[in-house]
């Protein structure tokens, strides 16, 4: 398709040859994009394909190195976000640009460039939120709100500026399926009012369902313009990834194949550590040898707190609240729990899962010095560099970690490759219990498939695997049962054969497990 001069009237936004270079990386390489009036235009691509960079240039947060932007047919320069807002471009950010310690109305006021009193803004926001069916308390502190409610603030804030073009960056990645449906209704309504929407996503089904046109990016370049309604999810995926992604295979396990309970959580409760964190309310869970249990839930419902408690980053007062291989572990540290045969992969790769400025081999020693002390550390505390290096190379080989040097610093790897190394580092030990938080967050499709297959493989070889994830598709792909965490409570695991998106979605929204099919209003 590209730029079509003849249709200039109907084109709201035209981008020609937009380029952004960070050091040696060309994040956007001569990108062309045309958004017409009253259309929902999808911007598709894997993580790191350049989608966020492109929209940041459109919103004035980043300055392009080359290329031009035409708005309503006229060339424009967008030096900062307020210039974008003056043109009529609004943005709903992926990582919300909200302030926890301020109220919803104050947050909205900050993006309006005038001195309207807060009370007036609150009233306007309330009225608008009712008109679009997005309930909002303007005087609530953002830090106290759920992720879905925060997104509503972002959307209302954007709409108050009466934009012509609304950019939504991965809006559904933090919503329950029901909340996402609600969002789609709002978008439909905006389209019928003649507004244009640039919709960034990597969820192909919703793009097929919602969008009128799509531009696909790969490695910073446009690889195609298409009509998503004419494509299949598979053909869109091929365009995004560039080749076929190996499908993850999960053989169902029968009851008899499952072994003893290796990880047991009994009545685990935890007080909130900060004013904005979630307390855990008597959580019970058993994970048996041979199975993968998934924990679904909207971000910020206590998953992080739960992981910290299970991994031993935060110890419990009741030793029996976490049991590993039949023994109490609640009062043991991370190393203590690792020595019992457990392994943990935290959510943040850099700074938590790995020390950014240390080499992969050094990171390997950091996480395994307690369990593999004999193999890696010799007499007198001298590090056995050879043995560690051999183990690091073994992991790199097994997980197909792509890197630029033999033993690079952790921060030099792409997200996907570092995640493969971190997961591989734990798998290499053959742990009998593995707990993973967000195993493939921000990881490209190829690496994600590799990690998921490895998790299933570990379970089938006789380990207990617990996966916490926001990505429902992932959980349905790898889990033998899915439990849902909501507001610090964990539901009973639902065997995968009985689980549907609708049931899980209702639980994510806070419906009682018993009434899952009757409740409609997410809390």
């Amino acid at each position, binding site marked *: 398709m590209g730029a079509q001069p003849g249709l200039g009237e109907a084109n709201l936004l035209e981008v020609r040859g937009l380029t952004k270079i960070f050091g040696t990386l060309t994040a956007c390489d001569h990108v062309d994009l045309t958004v017409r009036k009253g259309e929902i235009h999808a911007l598709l691509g894997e993580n790191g394909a350049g989608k966020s960079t492109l929209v940041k240039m459109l919103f*004035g*947060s*980043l*300055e392009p190195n080359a290329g031009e932007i035409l708005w309503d047919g006229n060339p424009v320069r967008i030096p*900062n*976000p*307020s210039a*974008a*807002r003056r043109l009529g471009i609004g943005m709903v*950010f992926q990582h*919300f*640009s*909200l*302030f*926890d*310690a*301020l109220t919803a109305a*104050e947050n909205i*006021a*900050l*993006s309006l460039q005038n*001195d309207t009193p807060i009370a007036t803004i609150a009233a306007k926001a309330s009225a608008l939120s009712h008109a679009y069916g997005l309930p909002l308390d303007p005087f609530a*502190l953002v*830090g106290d709100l759920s992720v879905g409610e925060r997104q509503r603030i972002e959307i209302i804030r954007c709409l108050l500026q009466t934009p012509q073009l609304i950019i939504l960056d991965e809006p559904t990645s933090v919503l329950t399926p029901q909340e996402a449906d609600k969002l789609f209704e709002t978008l439909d309504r905006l389209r019928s009012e003649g507004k244009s929407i640039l919709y960034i996503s990597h969820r192909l089904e919703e793009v097929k369902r919602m969008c009128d046109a799509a531009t696909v990016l790969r490695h910073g370049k446009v690889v195609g313009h298409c009509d998503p309604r004419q494509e299949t999810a598979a053909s869109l995926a091929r365009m995004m990834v560039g080749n076929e992604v190996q499908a993850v295979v999960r053989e169902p396990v029968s009851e008899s194949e499952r072994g003893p309970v290796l990880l047991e959580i009994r009545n685990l409760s935890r007080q909130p550590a*900060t*004013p904005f964190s979630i307390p855990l309310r008597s959580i019970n869970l058993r994970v048996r040898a041979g199975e993968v249990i998934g924990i679904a839930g909207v971000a910020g419902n206590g998953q992080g707190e739960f992981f910290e408690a299970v991994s031993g980053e935060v110890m419990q007062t009741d030793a029996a609240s976490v049991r590993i291989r039949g023994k109490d572990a609640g009062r043991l540290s991370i190393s203590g729990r690792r020595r019992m045969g457990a392994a943990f992969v935290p959510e943040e790769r850099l700074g938590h899962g790995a020390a950014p400025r240390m080499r992969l081999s050094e990171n390997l020693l950091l996480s395994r010095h307690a369990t593999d002390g004999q193999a890696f550390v010799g007499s007198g505390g001298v590090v056995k560099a050879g043995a560690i290096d051999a183990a690091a190379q073994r992991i790199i080989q097994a997980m197909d970690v792509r890197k630029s040097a033999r033993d690079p610093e952790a921060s030099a790897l792409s997200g996907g490759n570092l995640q493969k190394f971190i997961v591989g580092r734990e798998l290499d030990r053959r742990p009998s219990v593995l707990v993973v938080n967000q195993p493939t967050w921000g990881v490209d499709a190829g690496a994600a498939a590799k990690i998921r297959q490895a998790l299933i493989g570990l379970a089938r070889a006789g380990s207990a695997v617990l996966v916490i994830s926001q990505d429902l598709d992932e959980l349905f792909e790898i889990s033998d049962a899915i439990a849902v965490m909501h507001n610090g409570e964990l539901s009973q695991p639902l065997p995968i054969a009985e689980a549907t998106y609708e049931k899980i979605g209702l639980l994510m929204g806070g419906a009682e497990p018993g009434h899952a099919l009757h409740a409609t209003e997410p809390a």
Partner: protein
Amino acid sequence: MGMAEAILLTIATAATPLLLAAIGELVVERSGVLNLGVEGMMLMGAVAGFGAALTTGSAWVGVFAGIITGALFSLLFAFLVLTLVTNQVATGLALTLLGIGVSGMIGEAFVGQPGVKLTNIHIPGLSDLPYVGRLLFGQDPLFYISVLLTVGVAWFLFRTRAGLTLRSVGDSHSSAHALGIRVIAIRYAAIAFGGACAGLAGAHLSLVYTTQWIENMTAGRGWIALALVVFASWRPLRVFVGAYLFGAISILQLHIQAMNLADLAFLPGPLYWLLAQLKSLPSQFLSALPYLATVAVLVLISRNRRLTIMNTPASLGQPFVPDR
């Protein structure tokens, strides 16, 4: 003028420089920057104020010289931490050390010279009222400025759009940047304001508190101001309470150390007993009392953890590099 009024006046004089410096630092920290150079900026303000007043003979010229010197000196810090993105803690410490050194060098010529005193306000009639006249209507002008500044900063931070913007920058600089708020420019302004306040506090020391220049005459007041901001959970009115509490106890303990118990037999029994007990303590304990009492009281009024964390600027001390 009665004894009680005289004591209250000295308390106000002791508290004013603490309040001025702490209110300035509060604004800096609310914008997300930790400037540990308060002591150094105060000394620079003190020496510049003293020198300018001595040269021109006008205490008011000294006051303005103190303000401007403090602000300029803080801009050096701002350039280092905001533009060159150096470590805020290390840079702030360096600023204090630099301030001590440079002020000592400049001030060498002033040592032992009689300074110029900023005269107290005098409103005929009102200032001569019994008991409260001097207290309310007869103090030095900087006392009134410090009180107005406290109220003004509280109003600015919590009642104006600009104050909201400043707090938002301190809460999350990346969110603020994404909205198009000019994080660096706002922080430059906040740091310069903090520097001006510290300079004014220094000028108070050399033009009101004592009218002479003594090397290192701040004697740790900059550090106390820094601690007050934190213990007051970044709330202006609590900073006021803390500064006056500290000022009051440090003056009162001096009086307790100096007085003669035999002269106080007229006091009511319990008060007499308390004073006798205090006097029997080692003098080191009395000297430490202002610190202990201020910390204890401010910890008590900040015991609501939720409120404290909400008032803590979440991006305090973190470097910010906008991507372009």
